[in-house]
């Protein structure tokens, strides 16, 4: 599974992109976040306040309850500020 981080989530995790292989009981975005938080203090800090975290699965906005599978591209980022 490919995981991407943008803006301050990238700064906090210290990584823009990583390939991970979560265990089979990681079924949703929420599960994935809990699992990623254990990768280190930067990851834990990045996901400390989920109210300001948005997620995209395969480049479309997704809810934390959305299912994820090994072939997915999952991206985490703050609310967008383009335009």
């Amino acid at each position, binding site marked *: 599974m490919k995981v991407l981080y*943008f*803006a301050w989530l990238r700064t906090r995790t210290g990584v823009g992109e990583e390939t991970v292989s979560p265990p089979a009981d990681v079924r949703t975005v929420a599960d994935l976040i809990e699992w990623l938080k254990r990768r280190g203090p930067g990851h834990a800090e990045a996901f400390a306040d989920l109210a300001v975290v948005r997620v*995209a699965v395969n*480049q479309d906005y997704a809810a934390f309850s959305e299912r994820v599978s090994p072939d997915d591209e999952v991206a985490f980022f703050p609310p*967008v*500020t383009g*335009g």
Partner: protein
Amino acid sequence: MIRVQGEDFDAGAEIARFTSGRTDIGAVASFLGLVRDERSPGSPGLVAMTLEHYPGMTERQLSDIEAEARRRWPIEDCLIIHRHGRLRPGERIVLVLTASSHRAAALESCAFLIDWLKTRAPFWKREETEAGERWVEAKSLDDTAAERWNDGVAERWNDG
């Protein structure tokens, strides 16, 4: 059409290209967004603004936004250009152009596109000021502006 690019663009040339050789377009609406220095007396001035984006998802979201505008309004043509990278105060960030035979369709779809783009296109701004750097936070005002398009605007046009 959508374009995501680091380079600057020429709003006038794009408008001219939109209308050149055509006699079926009565109205072209445009919105140009620029890097603004919000300097208030005593606050640190803006040195630059860096726009990070999510390549791939940006193009997909902008294409979806364009398709939605075309579904809602009878527009003849549509262009969204959004830059990324490091920009100085006064530099152009985004251009939205819509052309229609109808004045209201051009104006409304242009406003819709920039409002939706602001809340859906995966861009993030990092400000460099004389006092340091910071990520720009999203404004709830932007969500409010986008939400007003959730009503019956499309229906009004689909009847006509």
